[in-house]
């Protein structure tokens, strides 16, 4: 029963450990006699070589073996000590060149009883992506991510634009869409399109409910914006843990989310989902911009955000406009949550919260409350996150994007598309 099991121990404390493992091919009769093993591969330019003989020597022990058809070999030794492993150059096929010193390796066991020693001969041609293509890939990924951020941001921006509220619970509205999608497609087994529609409808419903149940009463009491922001932080916390309460802490996948990408454009690989999500983002962003700039309700939305008592005095039903915005914001957040779950891919209870800061950064960078600003800001944030890691360590990838935010605001305190206020 030693086979197929690897037991090891920390030598640090002076206690060594037990049996060994062997792999599928390389076991030979020796294996039964010894407790410690060397094993490995012999390859020439990444091709395995068969019938190459390998010798081990050291501590008064010598043995030899040959590689199998996969270029693999295993050698047992009696003690956990240092040995010298030599590849017999004469057994190599014609034309295989071994550089000086490549044929002998000194090897010593670590904590375990097994030690891999590979002889990789030749140049080992690894096809890596060249720098230009890498940049291109990053840029495409960045645009893709940026568009998604924009979609997530637009609802936030709308709500901010109308009510002045920095809604931290927007993250949970995003998560909500994805979770509803999960519920209706995975758990209840509805077809994807239907599940998407239901999820978006329910997200819109969430927007409606939040406004009707929470924000409107608070507005009526004349609570200021900063306290409202804190309410949204509390709401965010409560909702987030409610999600965890019902859905648990682990990540799950939506149907079709893990299919491979099959659209090849030069070095770039995209999935249909990527394409669909990019297209959706662009269309929705244009539609929202149109809504804000051209439609009557859209203009009323901005009027309410500028000066809601005056809007009321102009005959605008302020509460209705805000309600519409919440419903729309909810639906957009839900949609972005679904796309986000496909893009990432994965659904989890805190998925919205994880990108909240980026969404806020994007909205701010573009200029608070401007629809196009949200788009521009999102694209910049997305691009910087993806591209900056060509130079930055990847665990600091958000640093680049956040620094850009600070630097841009140094020169344009009102954001990229924001407007300066007139003084006096």
């Amino acid at each position, binding site marked *: 029963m030693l086979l197929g099991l690897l037991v090891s121990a920390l030598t640090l404390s002076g206690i060594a450990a037990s049996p060994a493992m062997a792999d599928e091919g390389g076991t030979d009769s020796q294996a039964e006699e010894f407790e410690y093993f060397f094993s490995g591969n012999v390859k020439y330019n990444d091709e395995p070589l068969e019938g190459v003989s390998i010798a081990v020597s050291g501590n008064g022990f010598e043995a030899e073996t040959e590689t199998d058809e996969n270029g693999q070999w295993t050698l047992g030794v009696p003690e956990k000590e240092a040995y010298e492993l030599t590849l017999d150059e004469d057994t190599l096929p014609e034309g295989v060149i071994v550089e000086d010193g490549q044929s002998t390796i000194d090897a010593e066991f670590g904590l375990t009883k097994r030690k891999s020693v590979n002889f990789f001969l030749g140049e080992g041609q690894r096809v890596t992506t060249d720098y230009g293509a890498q940049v291109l890939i990053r840029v495409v990924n960045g645009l893709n991510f940026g568009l998604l951020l924009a979609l997530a941001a637009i609802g936030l921006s709308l709500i901010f634009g109308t009510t002045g509220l920095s809604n931290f619970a927007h993250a949970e509205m995003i998560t909500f869409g994805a979770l509803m999608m999960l519920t209706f497609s995975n758990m209840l087994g509805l077809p994807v399109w239907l599940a998407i529609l239901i999820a978006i409808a329910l997200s819109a419903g969430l927007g409606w409910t939040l406004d009707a149940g929470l924000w409107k009463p608070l507005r009526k009491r004349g609570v200021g914006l900063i306290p409202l922001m804190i309410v949204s932080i509390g709401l965010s916390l409560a909702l987030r843990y409610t999600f965890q309460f019902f859905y648990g802490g682990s990540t799950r996948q939506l149907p079709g989310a893990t299919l491979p990408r099959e659209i090849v454009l030069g070095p770039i690989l995209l999935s249909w989902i990527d394409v669909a999500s990019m297209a959706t983002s662009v269309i929705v962003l244009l539609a929202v911009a149109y809504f804000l700039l051209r439609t*009557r309700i859209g*203009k*009323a939305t*901005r*009027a309410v*955000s*500028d*000066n809601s*008592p*005056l*809007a*009321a*005095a*102009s*005959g*605008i*039903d*302020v509460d209705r406009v805000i309600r519409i915005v919440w419903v729309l914001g909810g639906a957009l957040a839900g949609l972005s949550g679904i796309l986000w779950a496909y893009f990432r891919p994965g659904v989890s209870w805190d998925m919205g919260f994880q990108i909240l800061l980026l969404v806020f950064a994007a909205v701010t960078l573009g200029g608070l*409350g401007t629809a196009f600003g949200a788009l521009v800001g999102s694209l910049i944030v997305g691009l910087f996150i993806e591209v900056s890691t060509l130079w930055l360590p990847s665990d600091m990838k958000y640093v680049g994007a956040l620094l850009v935010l600070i630097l841009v605001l140094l020169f344009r305190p009102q954001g990229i598309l924001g*407007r300066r*206020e*007139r003084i006096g």
Partner: protein
Amino acid sequence: MTNSEPAASAEPTGGTATVDTRDLVVEVRDVTAGYLPGVNILNGCSLTARDGELIGIIGPNGAGKSTLLKAIFGLVKVREGGIYLQGDEITNQKANKLVSKGVGFVPQTNNVFPSLTIQENLEMGIFQKPKDLKHRLEFVVDIFPELGKRLAQRAGSLSGGERQMVAMSRALMMGPHVLLLDEPSAGLSPVRQDEAFLRVKEINRAGVTTIMVEQNARRCLQICDRGYVLDQGRDAYEGPGRELLNDPKVIGLYLGTLGQD
């Protein structure tokens, strides 16, 4: 719709039980209102406006003039008393409801939407009846040609006077039956001020009942049918504009002698 003529005779000061053939359009009955709990700004203030009348309200700063207009328009909570529009009680009704009933209001401060363009600001004036837009836009631009040249400029970047024009125009866009104006002339250059007063008068002659608060008291009393002097949340004097204009007491307390020359 009756054409209005200047009130034929002076009404007794402070009197509310007057007999007049025209219907009461706006009636404020002993209203008490205020912002902070326990502090009343209006203390039993009363006012009437008959169909087609032009009412001027003057008074010292902080007398409660703006508060009175806001109370009529439902923007300040009325604590006691009632407000009636054509006989129906409208006390504490939502502002947008009143707009549908044909009441228009120009606030004293914060009276434009800064991030909207001038055109959009004007469109907001006619929010409830978008189809009349073109017609009315022409009408308004005719009054304030400065605005016509700048329809795409954001109101937030306008000068003080330009803002005031936008605010006036927005109210005119509504085509209201009752117009509440809070210091429409403040910040306008003399020529624009005169124009504004003339327009207000014209609008009024066209049948719009107008209540106007003014600190340019002389001008205001010159054109209005009846004037009220508000002091400390109460109507202290009331009478035809001309009469108040020449009342030595009113002059001493509220008008000053500067403009008399």
